[in-house]
């Protein structure tokens, strides 16, 4: 019943907005990234990338014969403001698509508005999963595209048997660590070989925690650290590691939130050999990546600026959206959504990214070792892995799946064969 109502509502919306969209030139692209406040440093770069991509597309003749116009707003790292500005973009500026957000909490804040107004949103950052909104395409990594392959690499290639899961105390590390803990247990790692610690944002006093980790080595097992430590706290953590003489050969650390941008604030000479897992590294040696980096340096006017994983996510997401709009022949949200399923676009690291029906990408997983120059040596690259919206390693979501194409549901319980809910207000 609900599905039917929704469908007819969608069909109605499609009918009305198709007429609008085709008439409306220029096509508007909303950019919702914080340009001030604590997240500014990460998100400003993404605003710049979006402007570059829009300019490039316009140079190629725009989309559907229309110019593209970037509508940039500043949510100022203020989570409720993300919802506010989403409403403004969709109702006042009437944008056709929004690219934006970084933190999970900001995405959660804008979801209800987005679903209410049936907008189209591209989210470019690796996140904790456990979500699949009808209106969002997730171009960053889900846990199975970053965390799980990194743990597999630790177990298979480095022979790690004792794990320290260190994280900052908020939703992303807690959810990721919960998934990893149950994954490790399923891999036969004993519960006493998993050490978990959470620290506040900006934590500076790492000496005891690093000593605790070093002490795990007395158990006679190879120790490895999985770090979901976020932001500035990484500086103190890596400084303490170096000070206590912990080398990557003794205790390797793999980080999920440390990329080229973050390393630019660190003295990397003492971090050589520690690891990071992403879907993109700037050091990827492909013609596409070289062209992208050249274009980026030209656009930003500074050859010292680095590129990173969320930038690639926007690059893929934007190009997929352009292709989907061309395929649908309209910018109407529902038509574009349907054209998005199965969209393919080449990764900057080689291979093809594919948009799946659960609104997550299939992308390769890369593991890189930190080099002295702040870049990464790519030492492992998997074939494309399909992003999982729901983790099979958490009991609550073990039976859930997302498929907007066939099942028309983002939270579908395969055990009871019912759709749990359509909105993402969890």
């Amino acid at each position: 019943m609900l599905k039917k109502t929704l469908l007819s509502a969608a069909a109605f919306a499609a009918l009305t907005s198709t007429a609008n969209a085709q008439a409306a030139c220029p096509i508007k692209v909303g950019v919702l990234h914080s340009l001030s406040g604590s997240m500014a440093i990460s998100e400003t770069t993404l605003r710049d990338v979006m402007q570059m991509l829009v300019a490039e597309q316009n140079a190629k003749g725009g989309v559907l014969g229309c110019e593209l116009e970037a509508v940039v707003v500043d949510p100022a790292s203020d989570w409720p403001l993300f919802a506010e500005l989403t409403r403004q973009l969709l109702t006042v500026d009437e944008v056709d698509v929004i690219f934006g957000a970084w933190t999970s909490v900001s995405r959660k804040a804008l979801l209800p508005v987005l679903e209410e107004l049936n907008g189209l949103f591209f989210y470019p950052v690796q996140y904790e999963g456990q979500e699949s909104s009808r209106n969002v395409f997730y171009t960053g990594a889900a846990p199975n595209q970053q965390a799980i392959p990194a743990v597999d690499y630790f177990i298979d290639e480095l022979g790690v048997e004792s794990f320290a899961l260190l994280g900052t105390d908020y939703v992303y590390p807690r959810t990721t660590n919960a998934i990893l803990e149950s994954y490790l247990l399923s891999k036969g790692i004993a519960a006493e070989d998993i050490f978990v610690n959470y620290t506040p944002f900006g934590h500076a006093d790492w000496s005891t925690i690093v000593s605790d980790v070093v002490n795990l080595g007395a158990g006679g097992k190879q120790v490895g650290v999985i770090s979901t430590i976020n932001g500035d706290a990484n500086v103190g953590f890596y400084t303490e590691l170096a000070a206590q003489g912990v080398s990557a050969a003794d205790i390797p650390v793999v980080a999920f939130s440390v990329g080229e941008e973050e390393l630019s604030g660190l003295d990397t000479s003492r971090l050589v050999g520690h690891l990071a897992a992403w879907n993109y590294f700037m050091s990827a040696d492909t013609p596409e990546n070289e062209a992208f980096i050249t274009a980026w340096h030209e656009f930003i006017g500074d050859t010292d600026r680095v590129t990173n994983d969320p930038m690639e996510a926007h690059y893929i997401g934007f190009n997929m959206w352009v292709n989907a709009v061309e395929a649908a022949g309209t910018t109407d949200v529902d038509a574009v959504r349907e054209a998005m399923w199965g969209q393919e676009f080449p990764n900057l690291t080689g291979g093809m990214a594919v948009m799946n029906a659960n609104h997550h990408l299939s992308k390769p997983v890369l593991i890189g070792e930190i080099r002295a120059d702040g870049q990464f040596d790519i030492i492992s690259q998997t074939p494309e892995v399909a992003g999982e919206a729901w983790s099979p390693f958490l009991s609550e979501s073990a039976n859930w799946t997302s498929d907007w194409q066939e099942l028309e549901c983002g939270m579908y319980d395969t055990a009871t064969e019912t759709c749990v809910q359509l909105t993402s207000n969890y």
Partner: protein
Amino acid sequence: MLRCLCAFALIWPLVFGPLMAQDQPDTTLQSVLQTLQNDVTNPSRSTVNDVLAALIAADAPNTVPFLLAWSDRNVVQRPSDGAFFFTQEADGNVTLIDIDTGAEVATVSTRDVTQIRPNAGVQREIGAALVAFELTHPEADRRIAALDSAARSPDPDQLPAIRAARAEEEVPAIAARMDRLIALLVARYDQDSATRVAAIDALRGDVSTPARSVLNQLLQTRAEFADSLPDDVNIARIKTLGEDMALTAAYDVLVAANLAPPAPGRNAIRDALRGNIVDGAVGGVPIHDLDNDASRIRAYQALEDAGTVPPLVTEADMADAVSQYVFFDTYLEPDATVTDAVRAAQSSTTTKVALFQFLSLSFDALSLASIFFLAAIGLAITFGVMRVINMAHGEFIMMGAYTGYVVQTIIPNYTASLAVALPLAFAVTFLAGVVMERLVIRHLYTRPLETLLATFGISIALQQLAKNIFGTQARPLTAPDWLAGAIQVNDLVSVAAVRVGIFVMAGMFLLLLLYILNRTRLGLEVRAVTQNPGMAASMGINPDRINMLTFGLGSGIAGVAGVAIGLVAQVTSEMGANYIVQSFMTVVVGGVGSVFGTLAGAALIGALQKGIEWFNPANTLAAQTFMVLFIILFIQFRPKGIVALKGRAAGD
């Protein structure tokens, strides 16, 4: 597998080395590598040992240099013919060097060849295979690296090679490390039980990580079960059901061994019921009654009696099945005398380990206390002496840290830049403090609430200013090399040198302040103004000037603290905000207006924080929360802090 490899490796250079030098062998390294192409190009920890064995068995010249280059990621493959080359970087491009002849072949772009990047796990295996060759290398660094490799992948087959190298070793430090490694390997792997027990006894009371790790490894157990206790195994413990092992866990073990039927879960029961609906009823129970577990089980049992579904396993069934077996843990080490010796050695180590861990925690607490002291002492002066609540104190810390960062970008030598940064940070924040006092605080001396608001506003403004100038990305403040390492007492107790440096600095500032306050004219005047500004003014002291200097001094010390904190933590625009709360707590707990009070407050808070962290290592945030709770309680009982000023000095 590795055994033959190592033995072979040992004799290889001795026997075949001279032979090869004389005449060309018929197998070139390139041809051997081509037979292993895929595993060389995509090395993995699981396949590398086969490659190493094959390479050493093939015994082509240049094998050792190739392994070193391979491990160092200096080998590339040309995709057109799959040939491998050594490489040399040549501005953006790479020069290919023939593996067999060492001749330069061509210079090509990096994209024309595939660089081979063995991961750390593979590098470790290659390092272990090279131990035998590298242990006798003329360069001491290479020998030490080889010893590290051998220690990381302990292997009994390396014993002869290490012993042989030990006989020739002349550097005492390296010889000592070799002896130690030999002792550990003997304890773990020697064939003779008595030798091992002797080696294990020697590890008694040894708190080093490798020694404890060997003991723990020897005590590794495996869970097993049998009809009755076997005599021929080394049993660690016998498990009592319900205490050491849950009934369902024990039953699951039997199911996994195919000794018992699996218990159907809720879903299996549901599916079975669903599949056996006959005329609106299952097993005689109408469907509308199947809304609770009891009736579902009744229906299932009816089906079970009819033989249509697998039997339901009740708790009694489980207990019955499990009672026929005995569950126990056995040591992987079959020799009981060895495990007894290990247990004895371990128990004598345990107390020592606990003691050293306590010591380590105490050092951490001292270090934290000294950082808190440095951060708070400036506040203690302004808050304690002048009764000004300066919310921008944290931003003076931040300002000092950024001063250090700017100096470091100008002066590349870290030691020199630190020597410049400390006084400069003092000067910059002294000036900032004086300016703030002159412009804002002077006008608000009698209105504490307005001071609080005004300084809070200034703190926000300063933060945003720092963001605009330096960006929000954390900036590095790198310690010079002599402060970069750690002072290592043993594997359990080590203190980062930079923390010791901060501790010393905190001590120096304590003495300096005591000297200024108690032994100088300025100190005398400060104390006079503190106790009674009106009387002090009538004695010819200018309270205005004293207030300004006091505020400058407090701010200046905050700047120096900023440089110190920047060395251990991160320099960001928000770093001050992280310390302002702790600083106020330190001052309030310690007792307002007293240098010794601040010292006591910092010591108490540092110790408390570490103590709570020790109880709850999983959540550092919780430790801070509990600490705040404790301080609230503490203030209830001692509102004036640990060191309360008495008499006239206490003012009102």
